[in-house]
């Protein structure tokens, strides 16, 4: 046994230094030079330079003048990305496909969306009534965005065609027409919406 002790310790120390220190630090260094914005969380700032979120992390919206994101299972509020305890950061609902609690939640969300979007008579797009895997999903499907156009336009006093154009502008199709799924980034769309509204009704 003894002849293998020294190699075990030495090889472990060297491989740890290479893979646990040199490698992650080298990647961090290159990332800091080549992709500093992305490596640090893709943080979005508003016109005054204040950080108002990450392009990649969703936020919760419930006012009629904003596009609503997908339901989120995080606590204490939806889209809590971190607040110190394992119970309050990114999570999915983990509701099974026959869980009565899931069916009740879906019914509740459908009723709320129907009440808020009375002009939309068809069935609700599924992503708007089901919670995401991370609880931080930054996107909704294109269908879910179009579903909300009439409500947002009415609440903001904007022409529906203008809001619809904005949604079209923010729609991202499948990568190369094949990969992923069509989606719209809710935070970026809502930020653009605020900018559009402020141009229409200049304050002061």
């Amino acid at each position, binding site marked *: 046994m003894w002849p293998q002790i020294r190699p075990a310790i030495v090889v472990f120390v060297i491989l740890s230094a290479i893979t646990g220190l040199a490698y992650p630090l080298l990647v961090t260094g290159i*990332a800091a030079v080549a992709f500093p914005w992305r490596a640090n969380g893709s943080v979005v700032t508003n016109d005054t330079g204040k950080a108002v*979120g990450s392009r990649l*992390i969703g936020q*919760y919206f419930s006012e009629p003048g904003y596009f609503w994101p997908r339901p989120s299972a995080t606590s204490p*509020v939806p889209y809590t990305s971190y607040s110190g305890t394992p119970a309050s950061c990114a999570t999915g609902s983990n*509701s099974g496909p026959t869980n009565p609690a899931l069916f009740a939640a879906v019914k509740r969300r459908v009723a709320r969306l129907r009440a808020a979007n009375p002009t939309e008579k068809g069935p609700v797009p*599924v992503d708007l009534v089901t919670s995401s895997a991370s609880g931080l999903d930054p996107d909704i499907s294109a269908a879910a965005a179009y579903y909300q156009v009439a409500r947002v336009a009415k609440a903001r006093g904007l022409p529906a065609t203008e809001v619809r154009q904005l949604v079209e502008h923010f729609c991202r199709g499948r990568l190369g027409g094949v990969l992923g799924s069509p989606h719209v980034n809710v935070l970026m769309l809502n930020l653009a919406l605020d900018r559009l509204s402020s141009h229409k009704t200049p304050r002061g």
Partner: protein
Amino acid sequence: MPAIAWIQMLVFLLVLMALVKPLGAFMARVYEGRPCGLNKPLGWLERLTYRAAGVKPNQPMSWKTYALALLLFNALGGLVVYSLQRLQGSLPLNPEHLGAVPPYLALNTAISFISNTNWQSYNGETTLSYLTQMLGLTVQNFVSAATGMAVLVALIRGIRGKQADNIGNFWVDLVRSTLYILLPLSFILALILVSQGVVQTLSPYKTVALLQPVSYVQSTTNAAGQTINKTVWVKQQVLPLGPAASQIAIKQLGTNGGGFFGVNSAHPFENPNALSNLLEMLAILLIPAALCYTFGCMVGDTRQGWAILATMMIIFVPLMVGCVWAEHAGNPTIAASGVNQTPSALMSGGNMEGKETRFGVTDSAIWASATTAASNGSVNSMLDSYTPLGGLVPMWLMELGEVIFGGVGSGLYGMLMFVIVAVFIAGLMVGRTPEYMGKKIEAFEMKMATICVLVPPALVLASAAIACVTVMGTSALGNPGEHGFSEILYWASSTGNNNGSAFAGLSTNTPFYNLVGGVVMWISRYFLIIPTLALAGALARKKRVPISSGTLPTHDVLFTCWLVATVVLIGALTFLPALASGPIVEYLHLWR
């Protein structure tokens, strides 16, 4: 199922298959010590390691020495990961000032990472410091993968050995796997992932303002026992950061799967878009698939490698298609509540509970199949919320013994055990002494192969049974009814086969689950490695029998079908009763 889903699956499989031969041939050169193109930039590091460690790279080991070196190295790794977690509060690179990880959780995580399982009882962003993530988990992501690859290479040397009592040198196989294969691939993948938005920084977590503040009602009980409701306004969001990309690259390439963040690759900071998703999915199956070709190269007959890869694909592809189909079919009860689940050019549709919009149903279900075929276990969607049959696929892929791709190295050496069993049964049927690659398969080889084939199912069924009949087991359930049973069965299948994915509704961060899970992961890793190495040693000592008219060819269509049947039959016979009382009953309930 829409046409685009078929195209997505096809693209994934074609890119994967295109990479098998170049990478497989490269790895064969690495293990045989032939020039591989990286000897100049990295060779000095290899030589330096041997010199410092007193290793003579040309000195081969007997199987017992090989196993001893491996066990010592892994035990040391476990000790270091455990200590780092317990001491992280007083160590550097801990900007969020996270305290010591509780003992049971630290133990579970340590075993989980040395055994290449990477089960997540921990929650990365709230539990582990940057130092623990880098020096503890990232290191084990590399070396546990390299350990699996070393065992495979040792077995291959046994198979082709010429009556010698040696199966190679563990230190050389370990160092070469890490330096020449895992490190360069991870480096490239990590940089591409950062370019797509995966975070990589040592800065503390960042606080940003919310565009629309959110309120909630907090209920507290005062001294008089009255409940006081208070409205709390949340105006900010904290973005957890860290050196994630470097860890995620090796987490996928080394079939590890333990997330930097709690929700693993569903977290937008781990997997921000469709491109990062494709690359991570490819990385999951890349090395296990390519090793089949490496095997063929090293035994001097690439047809042997292709036959095994074909066996894996014949089982994998229909199951993947089934999973994608089941998730697209969606949930009939939800559809009946006035919800549109039909896929279109504007949305993914299908069962979107527990899935991310940017991936949609197809890329989530392909991932779920790939991550459980390989013993990776990372997730980009929450498997607990899959439809009954969609969830059955990942569960059964693990229960087949993690041999359909499986872990890096461990998948193929597991599959070679099934090959030996298949050869043996075929030999019995035609009345000839079974042999594989010119080596006679006798009682000792069969005993070792049988242990490797039967230990995981025994562990899975026993630990699931214990969890089902104890309060400690059932009090962790996240869902009622048969789905609750599925959660326990999934946990047992995952730890008992060193996969690491979860039906995450089950709250496993308890002393019971951490301890039982830890023991199960430990047994299913090392009590397979030791018999495998013993088998390698036994085969190495045997003399090669020349091929005759009575030799059963192990590279043709007939044998491939026979191997498929062997794997499927053992997996089905062992687990059908359990699956019938979990996902199958749930399917009948949902669609009655």
